[in-house]
């Protein structure tokens, strides 16, 4: 898999990103600006794409310049209206948006999509990395509803994304893991949001559909 060949290079790049990110932040000690780790930023940006872009595009989010309290109120309002975020996920999104889109941030920022594309994957994980996992279908149902249903439909019958129930990709584990971990086109990458066990649980549940 593409991912594995990059092993130590990734770690180094991550360290660099972390270091550079940290210095920039200390230099610009904005009142509202909290430092954010690259891994957290990556997870948050993935969440914004997967959970926020359901009702409106991310440009509406990226054009705001708000302090933490207003981001908190805004994200809470979105959750109240149906954005699928657990309290922990909401906290990560608020932290990311406050760090990136605070009142002192530059007028021109890259889109959240473009920013995510430049971020290094946050943690090394792949299907093959530590041997086979046994997914638990009962746990997968809720994980699917929370993360995938908005696009793949209730019962995985398809919607904005393809039908996954009885999809051939379920038998091709390499392709399944590759797509889910790293994303493909409009399909978000989940490697920074879900751990291997959770993905295996979703896979197990999907095979029961």
């Amino acid at each position, binding site marked *: 898999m593409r991912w594995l060949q990059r092993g130590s290079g990734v770690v180094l790049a991550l360290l660099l990103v972390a270091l550079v990110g940290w210095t920039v932040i200390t230099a610009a000690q904005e009142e509202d600006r909290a430092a954010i780790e690259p891994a957290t930023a990556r997870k948050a940006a993935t969440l914004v*794409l997967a959970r926020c872009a359901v009702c*409106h*595009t991310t440009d509406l989010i990226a054009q705001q310049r708000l302090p933490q309290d207003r981001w908190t109120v805004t994200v809470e309002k979105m959750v109240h209206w149906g954005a699928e975020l657990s309290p922990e996920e909401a906290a990560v999104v608020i932290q990311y948006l406050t760090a990136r889109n605070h009142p002192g941030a530059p007028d021109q920022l890259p889109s959240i*999509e473009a920013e995510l594309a430049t971020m290094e994957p946050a943690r090394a994980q792949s299907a093959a990395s530590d041997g086979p996992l046994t997914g638990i279908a009962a746990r997968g149902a809720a994980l699917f509803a929370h993360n995938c249903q908005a696009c793949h439909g209730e019962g995985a019958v398809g919607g904005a994304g393809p039908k996954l129930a009885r999809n051939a990709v379920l038998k091709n584990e390499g392709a399944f893991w590759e797509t889910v971990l790293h994303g493909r086109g409009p399909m978000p990458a989940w490697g920074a949001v879900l751990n291997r066990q959770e993905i295996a649980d979703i896979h197990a549940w999907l095979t029961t559909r």
Partner: protein
Amino acid sequence: MVTVSRRGWFTTLLKGIGAGMVLGGGGSMRESAPQAEAAEATGPLTVRVTRPFDAETPVREFTSWLTSNERFFVRSHFGPPPAEAIQPEAWRLSVKGLVKESLSFTLKDLQQFEPVSLTAVLQCSGNGRAHHRPKVPGVQWERGAVGNAQWTGVRLRDVLQQAGVKPQGVHVQFQGADRPALATVPLFTRSIPLAKALHPDTLLAYEMNGRPLPLLHGAPLRVITPGWMAESCMKWLTEITVRVDETPGYYMQQAYRIPETAVRLSSGLPGSAMVPVEQMPVKSLIAAPAEGDTVRIGPVTIQGVAWAGEAPVVKVEVSCDDGKTWEQARLLGEGQPYAWRQWQFVWNARTPGPTAILCRATDAQGQEQPATSPWNPGGFLWNGWDRLTVTVEA
């Protein structure tokens, strides 16, 4: 509660992802037809939100009296409804609530009432939100969420009179056919006081600049409340309900409200009672030259537009030295109620270098455009002096 059909839901979702994730690397999802149409039909607008599509008009377009349908700013909360919902065979306008007789109209039925045309400014309440400090959440409109168009339709009053408003009915509620992506989001439902609804100039419009109302502007029918901000001008109108009270719900009770003090152009700080946004405050814009232009030493024609809610504009002043001195501009043509007034000023540019050009208007009630608008939490009703920078070249 209104539920959204699964199909409509997915279509809307698809639209969003198709448009919003282009950068993701061109997956299998395409922009849906209405979205693509929107992009083609709107020409060079400045897009603020891809989906639902929100875009403003570049101010250079305001050198013309009427703003064309293709260049007119676009704003909605959820994007246009599915085409099926507004096809002539399917579309109906229902009038109900506190009326003697509930009625249902096709577009042809409505066109039996006396047609009325008027030219009126339509402006989003959030126009200029980007200028408020501290910054406020919402679509970051700059100067162009406004336009001047000729609207043709029938009087809302005539329609209400046919149904017969009961004495308890004092608010008139509007509902359009547009629906949010998820049914958990509140519907965009608004009401206006009966007095405004019965005003002879309040229209149900089916034409814009002599052409059938375009999809993005509310086809087949929208409300026009001349002199009032655009959130009262419900698009894709399907239901009129006469009520005893103001419409409950987010878009009437929380959004589009300002502190009472901001209406009177004083402090504008929250803490006072919040009242619905209604009338447009007096405002003017410079349409030419454009921000950053270089002009030659000698006579330079500065032109623009000015408007106010229900009172005519009586004066526009221009400053070419960053607000130190002001001179009166010439108002062009005849004043028409609700339309904007074009103005012109010939400036004799003498000193080379950069300079700021400003304009401000005054209406017949003596309200003068302030240097900056009172801050309010929703960032509504910005009408600070318009301002741009040009460089004079020898």
